[in-house]
């Protein structure tokens, strides 16, 4: 698979990326249930469903593969891109393009670090790789989340990472359309607009949870 042509690699990345984009939507839906003032019932229900349903189990594997594919190709492609210009310019390029698009690798890495943290804090606990903090059961995501988000530095980090993800997606969604060849004069502006709106919605939506917990709970 490392022998794939540059376009094939990017297409696989884009497909995996778009898949992750849809997943984010689902994940956000569950997260937003935290905002419901019901002692975490809805949230826990949804989380349990996600944790036990057989179909979701399969989905989890696909998701994991999607992340791996996206990340591995992301690194590969970025490495190759660096190599394509061994001597850099004395004056950095100042073409008028979206500045975000040039930092996909950087925002990707931030998201990756976040993912690592996220796995450490939730998924690894769930599957028993890591011991849960004292007083919280391995499957009690609700209290675990509350605990984490009442730590200001953690919340800040969380929000920072989602701003990075928003930036990543702002370019990524329209870029994926372009990579897949879905570019049409009539619709491209709409795609760009929707992509930006969606990425804002994701970043804002995820950030809402810690903000809410920090400032409006208790």
């Amino acid at each position: 698979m490392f022998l794939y042509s540059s376009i094939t690699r990017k297409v696989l990345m884009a497909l995996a990326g778009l898949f992750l984009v849809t997943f984010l939507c689902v994940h956000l839906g569950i997260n937003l249930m935290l905002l419901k003032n019901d002692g975490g019932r809805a949230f826990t229900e949804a989380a349990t469903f996600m944790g036990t349903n057989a179909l979701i189990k399969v989905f989890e594997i696909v998701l994991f593969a999607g992340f791996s594919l996206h990340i591995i190709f992301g690194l590969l492609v970025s490495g190759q891109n660096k190599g394509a210009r061994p001597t850099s310019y004395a004056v950095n390029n100042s073409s008028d393009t979206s500045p975000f698009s040039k930092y996909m690798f950087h925002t990707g890495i931030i998201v990756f670090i976040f993912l690592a943290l996220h796995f450490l804090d939730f998924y690894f606990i769930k599957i028993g790789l890591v011991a849960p903090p004292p007083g919280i059961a391995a499957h009690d995501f609700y209290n675990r989340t509350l605990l984490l988000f009442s730590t200001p530095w953690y919340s800040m980090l969380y929000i920072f990472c989602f701003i990075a993800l928003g930036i990543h997606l702002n370019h990524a969604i329209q870029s994926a359309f372009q990579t897949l060849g879905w570019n049409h004069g009539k619709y491209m502006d709409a795609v760009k607009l929707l992509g930006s709106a969606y990425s804002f919605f994701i970043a804002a939506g995820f950030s809402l949870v810690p903000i809410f917990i920090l400032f409006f709970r208790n």
Partner: protein
Amino acid sequence: MNFTLKIWRQKNVAVKGEMISYDVSGISPDSSFFEMLDTLNQKLIMTGGDPVAFDHDCREGICGTCSLYINGRPHGPVKGVTTCQLHMRSFADGETIHIEPWRAKAFPVIRDLIVDRSAFDKIIQAGGYVSVNTGGVPDANTIPVPKEKSEAAMDAAACIGCGACVAACSNAAAMLFIGAKVSHLALLPQGRVEAAKRVQKMVACMDELGFGNCSNTSACEADCPKGISVSNIARMNREFLGAKLFSEKEKVVRVSL
């Protein structure tokens, strides 16, 4: 007008180069960027120095030979023009102007500001043509071509092969150049016939030559002197995917004589 120039000097492909500073004075705002460099070179020759080598030929924006990276932009600060069409009135009196060659692994520096762009020729050789021989073709009006298609093909065909897209791209990717050629031919019925084969061969060649991947930053489009649109890259991706997914394996047909 007076300028301070910081210019990349490099004797040949094998040695290291560096930025060197020069002053030029008494330049008319109406003179072109190259006429300004000509003035510098005349001065260097008269004082026993070594003139700065740069590529240029038509000096009217059509041959695609000129290739300077000026103050962080291929072909300089004015949109939609080549280096040879730049005039000094586009710069401020007393300005310091940085001049560098195109930078890409696939475009090694030959001397000073001159790079070797034969990689582009290789890509065209890989498949950027319609396989017809001289003679034996049908009358030109046999196949009608919708005007919009032929205009779109012409838009893509306007590429002058200068390489500014590669120079501008943060990944030194050649996708705009190749996308333009693939699109130009794929849009016309005459080029359609071997479109699937063409795009695969050209992309394979591009990868081999060490160009980067496309991150869809559109820096290429922003600095392309001919306004080639990135929609051509999308069209190439589409062509490529279609070809990869749906083209039949080529059969080897033996012709016995």
